[in-house]
């Protein structure tokens, strides 16, 4: 079970005194493997890289449920491979490499022999995601505040698309709207959130 694999690593990172982790460990893990300093370094790096890796996986595995599964597998694979990580290498490139392998495994497992995009384009995309800076990742932390400012109708749209993983046609059925209208509304919603994040980031930098 994935949780059983990941909990000992989390426990070692946070310390066994963390009550939640300790409780889960009592129930699910008979033994806690040794985790060295390299593992701790990987855990720290992973916290920053995770949004990028998640987005990369999402570019190839668009179903959210499947994407979440692949992300989870990737997180575990990264933690389990921590000893093999060379700190001289950029962490994000290493993590994206593992994520790419996990996507391949997923495609094989689900009998989808071909990725959405060709291999050369996937290479390009790995490069594109590698180039995302820490500052750009940090800006996404404004998203929560922006989401809280949405109108009720927009909140509902966000819930249906991102929590319930409904596609525009299904959302349209639920709300009595045409699928195309829902698509446009989702596009507007994302544009609006992007603009909100930009505004918040600009204000934080103290620029007009």
């Amino acid at each position, binding site marked *: 079970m994935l949780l059983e694999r990941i909990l000992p690593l989390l426990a070692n990172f946070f310390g066994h005194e963390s009550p939640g982790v300790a409780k889960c460990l009592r129930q699910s893990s008979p033994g806690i493997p040794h985790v060295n300093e390299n593992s701790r370094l990987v855990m720290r790096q992973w916290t920053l890289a995770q949004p990028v890796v998640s987005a990369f996986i999402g570019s190839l595995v668009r179903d959210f449920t499947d994407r979440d599964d692949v992300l989870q597998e990737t997180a575990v694979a990264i933690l389990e491979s921590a000893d093999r990580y060379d700190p001289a290498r950029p962490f994000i490139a290493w993590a994206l490499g593992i994520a790419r392998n996990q996507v391949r495994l997923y495609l094989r497992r689900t009998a989808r022999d071909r990725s959405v995009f060709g291999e050369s384009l996937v290479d390009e995309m790995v490069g*594109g995601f590698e180039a995302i800076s820490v500052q750009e990742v940090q800006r996404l932390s404004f998203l929560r505040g922006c989401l809280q400012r949405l109108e009720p109708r927009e909140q509902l749209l966000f819930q249906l698309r991102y929590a319930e993983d409904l596609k525009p046609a299904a959302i349209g059925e639920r709300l009595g709207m045409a699928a195309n209208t829902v698509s446009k509304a989702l596009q507007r919603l994302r544009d609006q959130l992007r603009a909100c994040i930009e505004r918040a980031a600009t204000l934080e930098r103290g620029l007009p």
Partner: protein
Amino acid sequence: MTLPDDLLHGYLDQSLTSEQQLELEAWLEESPQHVRSFADLLMLHSQLRSEALLLDSGLPAASALPAVIPELAPVEEPGRRIRGRRRLRRLSGLAITILITLAAVLSFRPGSQRTTVSAASAEILQLITENKAPRDRTYQISVEHAVPVERRRSRVVHSEKRPPKPPMDDATLHVGGSGQFVLIRRRPDGRLFITGSSGIQSWAVRPDSPVRTSTDLLRFSRDLPGHEYSLSLTELPLTLEQLQQSFDVQIVDAGAADESTAANGASIEDPISAATRLLIAVRRPGRPGPRRIEIEYNAASHEIHQIRFIDMPYGPERLTLRLTLTSRDSQPVGFYDHAAHHAPELPVEQE
């Protein structure tokens, strides 16, 4: 070559035709800058999913998160400046939270724990078996949360013709065997509105009105929590079967239930004993009913002592309801007949 935004967003929502997909691919191959723009949009898309998972898991608001991320604020005012190391630490906290949440939340999904699903099915069968015997039970109903829901125009017009439903908060529900129930609600003016079914006829006792009865047993049972989604408390075995059809079900043991409920902000008045289990049912996409149902029961006797319907459509609102078992005492003979709940001189109208 410029690409309409429609194609980028259409890719995210999986609504592109194969021609449009090729068009997008060609555009991406044209320039690394295009790939970067695409990656930026995917970052937002992915983060939206992560935020939705956090919200959907019922984790406490950011301000209530434990000390591991003390600086995480619930709403970021644009004018507020958080700089340097503090900002970085805050983001690290968020990322750690997401990692733990993914490990914890995703582990409850059937896609992640297929072996647990079969275990859950066996447990539900056991629950059905143990709850088949008709027994009187009394539940106290609490409304934990209520939000108005937008409806289609035609439905609004229809619902405006009907009087508002009496509040469900603080209602008492008695259930017996064979569809018998008595639901006692208090109207804002303090007077009681009682509906029920004897198993032979259903009935309603309203203030200043004749008692109404019907041989249609469903006539006055529509207000029972969960009833319109075939999740009636009067027919627990059927309800449990329905759970398997429309919900993804997981069983959490006592210790984990403790954490799960705490993470969901639920308030459980009695401490959960070591012999308690929590059945968590999450509605499948496209299915009607509450977003989530939690059933807390005794692991040994399979006696259900608390049920929560979370985010359940109910009239013009979406409610989170908690039903807590308060009594297993047998009711007196005739308790489920309307006559036991009104003055004898009140006229009775048969529908």
